[in-house]
C-alpha cells in the first residue's frame, strides 16, 4: 500500500488550509499572485511527495520556509529576465487602478518602496510585520541569526523611511 504520497487525509487538510495564507505570503514576497500560486502549489506537492514524515507541529514552519525559498528562486529568475527589460517592472498583482484610488495613498507608497527592498530585507519585513513572527522565529525561518534579522529589519526600515521622506520632499 504505502505510496510515494503516503499521507493521512488530515495531513492533506492541513495543507489545504494553508493554501491561501501561503499564497498571500508568496504574493508579498514575489509581488505576483500568479507566480505565488505556482510557488505554493509546488511547495505543497513537494511536502506530499517528500515529507510524509513531518509532524503537524512543524508543518506550517516548514511550509513557510519552503515558500520563502521558492519565492526567492522565483525572484532570482525574474531578475534575470528583468535585465532585459527597461527599468523596474511593476508587480503584476498590485491592486487595480480603481482599488488604488480607494486605497490609502500611504499604503501604496509603502508598498512601492517595500518592492524596492533587497530580497532578504523584504523577507524580513514580510515575516516580521505581516506574519507577525518574532525576531527569533524570523531567524529560524530564514535560517539566519537573530542578529542578521535585526540588522536587516533596521536597514529596511531606515531605507523605507529615507525613500518615503525623499518622495514627500
Amino acid at each position, binding site marked *: *500500500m*504505502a*505510496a*510515494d*504520497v*503516503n*499521507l*493521512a*487525509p*488530515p*495531513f*492533506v*487538510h492541513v*495543507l*489545504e488550509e494553508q*493554501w*491561501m495564507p501561503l*499564497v*498571500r505570503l508568496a*504574493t*508579498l514576497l514575489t509581488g505576483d*499572485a500568479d507566480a*505565488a500560486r505556482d510557488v505554493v*502549489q509546488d511547495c*505543497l*506537492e*513537494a511536502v*506530499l*511527495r*517528500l*515529507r*510524509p*514524515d*513531518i*509532524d503537524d*507541529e*512543524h508543518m506550517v514552519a*516548514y511550509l513557510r*520556509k519552503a515558500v520563502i*525559498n521558492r519565492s*526567492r528562486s522565483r525572484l532570482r529568475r525574474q531578475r534575470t529576465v528583468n535585465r532585459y527589460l527597461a527599468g523596474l517592472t511593476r508587480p503584476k*498583482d*498590485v*491592486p487595480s487602478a480603481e*482599488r488604488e484610488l480607494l486605497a*490609502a495613498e*500611504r*499604503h*501604496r507608497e*509603502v*508598498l512601492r518602496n*517595500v518592492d524596492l527592498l533587497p530580497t532578504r530585507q523584504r523577507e524580513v*519585513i*514580510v515575516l516580521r*510585520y*505581516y506574519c507577525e513572527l518574532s525576531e527569533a522565529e524570523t531567524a529560524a525561518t530564514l*535560517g539566519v541569526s537573530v542578529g542578521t534579522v535585526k540588522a536587516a529589519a533596521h536597514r529596511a*526600515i531606515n531605507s*523605507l523611511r529615507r525613500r*518615503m521622506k525623499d518622495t514627500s520632499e
Partner: protein
Amino acid sequence: MSTELEKDVAAALRFRADEVPDTPCPPLGAARVATQRPKRWLVPAAAAAAAVAGLTGAAIVLLPGSGGDGRDQVTAAAPTDVYYSRTLTESGDRIIEMQLWQGKGRTDAWQQEGVGGTTIKDGRVVPDNSVQLDYPEKGECYPAASPADEACAKPGSWFNPTPDFLAGAPRDATVIAQQLNDEAVAEEERRTAPGGDFDRTEETFSPANLAYLELNYLRGTLAVNGMPDDLTAVLRRVIAGMPGIQVTEGMANLTGQRGTGYSLPDHKGDLLTVIFDADSDYIGSPTEAVVRGMAPALGAAPSTLFD
C-alpha cells in the same frame, strides 16, 4: 512594532495580501492515502514506494464471513488479477483505513477506498461518519493519476521501488545496505543544497541520521503491493544491521498482530518502528497495520490475503 512607519508597513502588507483573490486549493498529489507519519528527525526523510509487480510468496485463502460487517469477506476461487492492500493508520484520535487495488504493471489502473473511524473491530475500522476523508479514488500508474505524470516516469530505486527495480534488485544484504546509504546521502545532498528546504548541519550525514532516513523510506517500500517475500526477508536483515537499531520481541501492530519490532529514535527520542511477523512478513508498526493480497478486479473483495 513601535513606530508609525512600522505600523504603516504592516497595514500596507495586509492591504496587499487582502487584495489576493481567494482561489481553491488545487488537487494535491495523486494518491493521498493514509499511513503513519513518524516524528521529524534532524533531516528530511522522504516517502518511498510505488506500484510494484512480481509478487511471490504464499497466499492464504481466507474463509468468507471473517469480517464483522461483510467488508472483509473474501471471494472464493476468483482469478487473482490485481494486487490488493489494506492499511490501517492511527492519526491522532482517528483511524484511517485505506484499501488499494492496483494492476500488476506499473502503468495499470488503480483504485482506492477509505473509511475513517475511532475504533477497530476484527481488524477493520468501524466506519464513523464524523470522520470525513478526502482522497482520489482512481488513476493509472499508482500513485500517479496518469502515466503522463512526472511520478510515473521517475526511475526506480530503493526510495522509489518500481516493479522493474524490485524485480532486478539485489538480494545481498551488504549490497543493499550500501545502495541505501548512497541513496540517503544523495537525498540529503539534494535537500540541503542551496535553495533546498533544509540547512545542512553536522548531523546531516551522520550514520544515525542516514539510518533513520533509510528506515523511513523502507517503511514505505516494505508496504508496496507486490513486494517479493524473499526481498522482504533480506530487507529485514538490512534493517536489523542498522546502527542503533532497537529490537523488541512481541511488539503489536495497530490491529494487535505481534512480531519483532525494529526501531530507531528521532532527535526527541520518539521511535520509528517497523514490525515483521515470524515469517518475516512486514505487518506495520504500533500505529499502522498492513495487509496485502489479491483481488479479482479493482474494487472487488480480496480473493486471497497474504499471511
